[in-house]
Structure formats: structure tokens, C-alpha cells
């Protein structure tokens, strides 16, 4: 019996380790993905004032701190029973879309993209952002830096800090947007639209889709799992990151459940294994059947491909056009291809750019009316958003002073944790034969994780 260890898994946020066990013939018997990390937010949030939650729970993940901040802030709206002002909702959604775009770009170029743009079999020294810039050209490199700067400018103007913004309060946000800021936001949104079109229609189409080797990887069986899919949708069942209701479809694409944030305990359960610190979410009404595929297993997926699978379409025209193109190429909806998460991410990038452009054009954005002060006694509150990596739930219970007595935080990583384990094992079994292991093969196993963009902090 031989054991292969990948430690740490790289180009992802946080920590992860892979253990692969080979049998006598050198074939993979089992492969495990372990998260060797826990900090215990669900305990140490107890005793803290609820209004501080957006500034504490965001430290779960620095890469998606805006997502935790926003889920937490929405949970506070619910907890203190206060509706945010109309302007506050728009400002929050603008900031949120700016963040999703910024994060998707970061993931595509720095974390996941090097495997496609540089190439999965290239040496470890080249498979990174520097390699991406070398391949895509300095001009593209300059655009990547510029667009991220502008998007961060939007987040910073509203939230103070890009990493760990501070503006979220029950009933709204801490300060209004000035007209001068809004003008900057318009320029950022316009730049983003142009950038997204360039990435989706030039880089991805030309570098990735025209390369048969890559296309085969995306559509092939090595990275494929038939599971349930979850995502937040608006009233027309179109993808929405900031608000709406949660929709779940089964592996055939049929709607399985539709519920709001407050109802999540009726639909989600968490399973515990002794060999990892992360928990495994599953659909309560299907049940935990282990790390298996199909209709009878409660394993579900979240994130870009899952959101698109769970929705009926995109709410903006360019994104919708590209969405149709992708499903046509993949030949089925729901699409079960894990590597197509990267593709779906670019469709979402197009959507965020168009949505931002809508929002910055709204004169209400500069209204001074950005907060409603809560007057009710808090009891419990739930909030949900789509983090870049998938559906994210925050749930707080408090005493009558608003001091947290219980916190339940279900992050996208946990929602995808079972399918990530399955993806790793399937990739390992498909790629390792007769004990032959190379750096490139191990990297291709890690690619099964990176597609999900998990944050294992």
C-alpha cells in the first residue's frame, strides 16, 4: 500500500490536504480531501453584540469578506425587524456586485485560470499569475490590474475597506454615496463591461475553447458529477447574488425546493466525519447517503455552475446570450461538468458588469436616506447571499439586548465539501494508473478542487 500526499493544496484560499491511497497494482483505492483547519466562529460569536457580527464573521474569509459582511448585515435586518431604505438596498447591491466581479476576476486569473491559460501540464513554476500574464500579454495583464483597482474603488468608497468592509448596519448602511463617487462608479462599471466582454469572448473562447485538449477536459467524464444544485434567484427565477429566494433543482433539472432564508433549517443538514474539520451539508429531505452521486443522495452543489443550473436564466442580455451559448455547447442543463464552473463564472462576470451599469445609473443611489434605525426587540435573524463560491447562510439568535446566544454559519465551502471530496477521488482514480504519478497529474487532481473556488479558512 502506497500513500501520496498533496500538502498543501495550492492556489486556493485557506488550507487543504489530499491523501491518496494506492493498492498493490498502483491503482487508487481511496482518496481523501481533508481540511486541517477550524477556528470556531459558531462558538465565539456567542456573547458578542449582534450589530458587531458583520465586522466579526467577515473574518471567516478575507477573500469573500464582503459576502459574509452582507449575509450578516441581512441577518441583522431580519433580527432587528427593520427594512433597509430603498437607497441602502441599491447601494448594498452595487457594492455586492462589484465585489462578486472583483472576486471572480481574482479567481479566474490568479487561482483557477493558470491551469487553463498557462496549461495544466506546465511546470509548477509557470502555473501562476505571472505565467498568465506572459501568455495573455502585458496589455491583458494591465487590464486585469486596472479593472480590479476600479472595482476595489467602488467597494472602498462604500465600505471603507476592500478587505473587511465596515458599512453594514441593520436597516441600511453607515453613510450615503456622493455624486462624485457615483460618477466614478459609472466609469468603473463601463470599464468592467468592456473587460468582461474581452475575457469571455476573446480570452476564454480563443485560448480555452479553441484548444481541443482543454475542451475535452471540461466536457469529459473525469470531472463530472450528477448532483442537486442550489442557488439564489429573483422573482423571475433569474440568478441574483444579493437577494431573492433559494431554489434547488434535482440532477435532471426539475425544481426540488424553493424557500426563503428563514426556512433554511427545513432544507439543509450537516454531516460530521472524524477525519476532517469541515462539515458536509446535504439536503435534509433527501438524506445523507455518503459521498455518492444521483437523485437518491442529498449531496448538492453551489457556486457558479450550480447557480446557473438552479436558475431559469440571467437577468441581463449579454450574460443571457453567453449563458445560452454555454448550455448549447455543453449539450445539457443541468450541466454536471465541474470544470465548467470556470465558464459559468465568466457568464456571471458579464452579469455583474451589466447589473452594475443598471445600478449606477439610478439617481436614487445618492439619496441621503440610507438607514432606518431599528425599534423592535431582537430575537432571531437569518440572512442569505450568493457568495462568489456559492450560497451562504448566517443565522443568529440573541437575548432581548441583542447579545448573540447562538450563531449558525453555513459557508459555501461546507455546501460543496461532499462534492469536492467526490471530485478529488474521481479525478485521482481516473488519472493515476499503475502507480505513475507526476507533478502534472497531481495538479490535475487539484484542478478538481480549484473549479469550486473554495475558501477553506
Amino acid at each position, binding site marked *: 500500500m502506497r500513500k501520496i500526499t498533496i500538502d498543501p493544496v495550492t492556489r486556493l484560499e485557506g488550507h487543504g490536504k489530499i491523501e491518496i491511497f494506492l493498492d498493490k497494482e498502483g491503482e487508487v483505492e481511496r482518496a481523501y480531501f481533508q481540511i486541517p483547519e477550524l477556528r470556531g466562529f459558531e462558538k465565539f460569536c456567542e*456573547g458578542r*453584540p449582534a450589530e458587531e457580527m458583520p465586522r466579526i464573521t467577515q473574518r471567516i474569509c478575507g477573500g469573500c469578506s464582503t459576502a459574509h459582511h452582507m449575509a450578516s448585515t441581512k441577518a441583522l435586518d431580519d433580527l432587528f425587524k427593520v427594512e433597509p431604505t430603498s437607497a441602502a438596498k441599491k447601494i448594498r447591491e452595487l457594492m455586492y456586485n462589484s465585489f462578486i466581479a472583483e472576486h471572480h476576476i481574482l479567481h479566474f486569473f490568479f487561482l483557477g485560470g493558470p491551469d487553463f491559460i498557462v496549461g495544466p501540464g506546465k511546470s509548477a513554476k509557470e502555473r501562476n499569475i505571472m505565467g498568465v500574464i506572459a501568455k495573455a500579454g502585458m496589455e491583458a495583464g494591465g487590464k486585469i490590474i486596472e479593472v480590479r483597482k476600479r472595482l476595489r474603488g467602488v467597494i472602498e468608497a462604500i465600505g471603507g475597506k476592500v478587505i473587511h468592509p465596515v458599512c453594514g448596519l441593520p436597516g441600511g448602511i453607515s453613510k450615503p454615496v456622493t455624486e462624485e463617487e457615483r460618477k466614478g462608479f459609472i466609469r468603473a462599471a463601463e470599464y468592467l463591461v468592456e473587460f468582461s466582454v474581452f475575457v469571455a469572448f476573446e480570452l476564454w473562447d480563443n485560448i480555452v475553447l479553441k484548444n481541443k485538449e482543454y475542451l475535452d477536459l471540461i466536457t469529459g467524464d473525469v470531472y463530472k458529477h450528477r448532483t442537486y444544485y442550489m442557488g439564489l434567484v429573483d422573482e423571475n427565477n433569474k440568478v441574483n447574488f444579493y437577494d431573492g429566494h433559494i431554489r434547488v433543482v434535482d440532477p435532471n433539472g426539475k425544481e426540488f425546493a424553493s424557500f426563503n432564508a428563514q426556512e433554511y433549517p427545513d432544507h439543509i443538514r450537516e454531516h460530521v466525519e472524524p477525519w476532517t474539520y469541515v462539515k458536509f451539508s446535504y439536503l435534509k429531505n433527501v438524506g445523507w447517503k455518503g459521498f455518492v452521486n444521483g437523485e437518491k443522495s442529498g449531496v448538492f452543489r453551489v457556486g457558479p455552475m450550480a447557480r446557473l443550473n438552479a436558475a431559469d436564466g440571467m437577468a441581463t442580455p449579454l450574460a443571457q446570450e453567453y449563458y445560452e451559448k454555454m448550455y448549447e455547447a455543453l449539450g445539457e442543463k443541468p450541466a454536471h461538468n465541474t470544470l465548467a464552473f470556470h465558464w459559468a463564472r465568466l457568464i456571471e462576470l458579464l452579469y455583474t458588469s451589466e447589473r452594475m451599469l443598471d445600478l449606477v445609473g439610478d439617481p436614487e443611489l445618492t439619496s441621503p436616506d440610507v438607514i432606518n434605525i431599528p425599534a423592535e426587540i431582537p430575537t432571531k435573524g437569518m440572512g442569505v447571499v450568493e457568495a462568489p463560491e456559492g450560497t451562504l447562510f448566517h443565522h443568529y439568535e440573541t437575548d432581548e439586548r441583542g447579545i448573540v446566544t447562538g450563531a449558525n454559519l453555513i459557508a459555501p465551502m461546507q455546501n460543496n465539501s461532499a462534492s469536492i471530496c467526490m471530485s478529488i477521488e474521481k479525478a485521482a482514480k481516473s488519472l493515476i494508473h499503475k502507480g505513475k504519478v507526476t507533478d502534472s497529474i497531481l495538479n490535475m487532481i487539484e484542478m478538481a478542487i480549484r473549479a469550486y473556488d473554495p475558501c477553506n479558512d
Partner: protein
Amino acid sequence: MAKPKVAFYSCASCGGCEEAVINLDEDLLKVAEAVDIILWPAILDFKRKDIEAFEDGEIAVSFINGAVRLGDQEEMVKLLRQRSQLIVAFGSCAHMGGIPGLGNLYTRNAIFQRVYKEVPTVENPEGITPQERTAIDIGELTLPEFYDTVKTLDQLIPVDYYLPGCPPPSDLIMNAVNAVLNGELPEKGAVLAPDKPLCDTCPRAEERRGGVSIQEIKRPHEIKLSPWKCFLEQGIICLGPVTRSGCGERCIKANMPCRGCMGPAKGTIDQGVKALSVIASVLGLEEEEGMTEEEVKKLLDGVVDPAGTFYRFSLPDSLLTRKRME
């Protein structure tokens, strides 16, 4: 001459410090040209074995973020200490424990109990919790030990410099990197940020009329926050008086009070004790003769979470370190 080798590593952290480095943009590309980055798991495909293969002292500088919560983190920081000439504690968690340090208000068992057995959605009839060793039919899987107490980096290895903030601001990161590259470092043990307290650089300080006196403590969601008035004057707890400056007053500019992520200003040993005494003084408690005990108690009750407020980022580094173990 060979380029200096540089490592980035994270322990119990959120990844925000790494993103702060990515967000250096063009400056990051310049740094990447000037040095040889030999470890940065978030961005580069080098593994632990690559570090083990280096000789002692071969790495010029390791920037380590995150507190130390688990056994493998302790092993890795000790390995990096051996292999590195300089260690920089990067960000609030490595510096003082940071937000994960709030875990010291509870024990390992209490955390496991809540996370794996009590949260409303967990289904765990057998009461399974993660184990350091799990036998499986084909071998064994191991996990690092989850410690009872979160530690700061310098409680485990000697640290040469500290770069504060959650995350550290870009300009301070670049100053630190340039100081290392040019060999222009201050005395060992220095915090690589300005010494003054935040109040000295706060844009709201000018508006403050003389001394501050709080009649009643308010929480940030209870009032309409003034966009220009000192937070303490509004009755909102702000850690500006006891916190190091250099952050660019980013939270204050977003109209929210300081929570102390930059750590204590120079000369202060315990940020929380100092904060408590400052708040006590602005509450008028120094002239409390005129107040009844009842009135004093009522005022102090306004601080609903003293430990989590005054030690938001610094509990493991404080004189308290943690809540007493039963």
C-alpha cells in the same frame, strides 16, 4: 547575486492578508521580479516538501499571517523560523491573535460541542467530532491537534518585526518589503507602522471640542451616526485613543468606529486595559463622587461586551491571554 528568497505563509487566518498582498497590483509584480518567492500557497504551486529541502537560514524573510490554533501551524512556523533569517508577523492575527483569538473566551471542548453537536442544522446522533487519528480500512488519516488556546506568533517563535492591521494597509506592506530589501530595518522587535495613536491622525479630531464626556453609551445601530463628529462624543465606543495609527482611518471614513485592529499605540502594553481606562475616564467616572453607585453601574452596563470590545483583536496577546480554564 541570487535574488533573496521570500516566503508567505498563513496559519489561523482568513486569507485577507494574502489578498492584501495581491492587491499591491503593479508593486507586487515589481516585488516578484526583485525576489524569489519560494512559498505562497494561495498563489504559487510550491509545497511543504520544498521548504523542508532548504537549508537553515536560506530564506531571507518569511511573512507569516494568522494566529496559531492547530498543531501543524506550530510545526510549520518552527520550520520557517529555522529556514529564515527574518520573520515578520504579518497582520493582526499573527501580531496579537486577531479575531480568531476570541476563541480564547471558550475551550476546545465548548467549541467542538457547539460546532459539531449543537448548531441547529447538524445531524450527528453518534456525537462524532474530528479526531487526530482516524483508522480507515486502508490505513490512517491524521488531523493536526486543535489547541485549547490560540497563540500569537511570538508566543511560539522569535519574531523580528510586526506588520499590524486587519489586513495591513498597502503602503505599510510596501514600506516593510522595501526596508527588508534595502536592509534599512529598524531595531528588532519593532512594529512597522507609525507610533502615534489613531486619535492624533483622525479627521474628526479637529471637530472635537476639548475633552470628551459621555453621558450614555450608545451602540452603532441605535443612533443615526454623525458623519463628522467624534464617535466617543456621540457615545459610541471607539478604540481610536488606544490604537496605533497608520491604517488611513479607513473605518472612520466609512462612518464606523475603530475596533483596534492595528494594535496598541507605542508604549501601551495591554490595549484592552488601556481602552477600559480611557472609557472609564470619558464616562466621567473620575469625578464619580456626584454619582450614585446605581448611576455608575448603569453607565458601565452600556458596555455590553467588554472582553469582545476592548480585546477584539488582541486577547491572546493581552495580560489575560484567555478566559480561565475550569
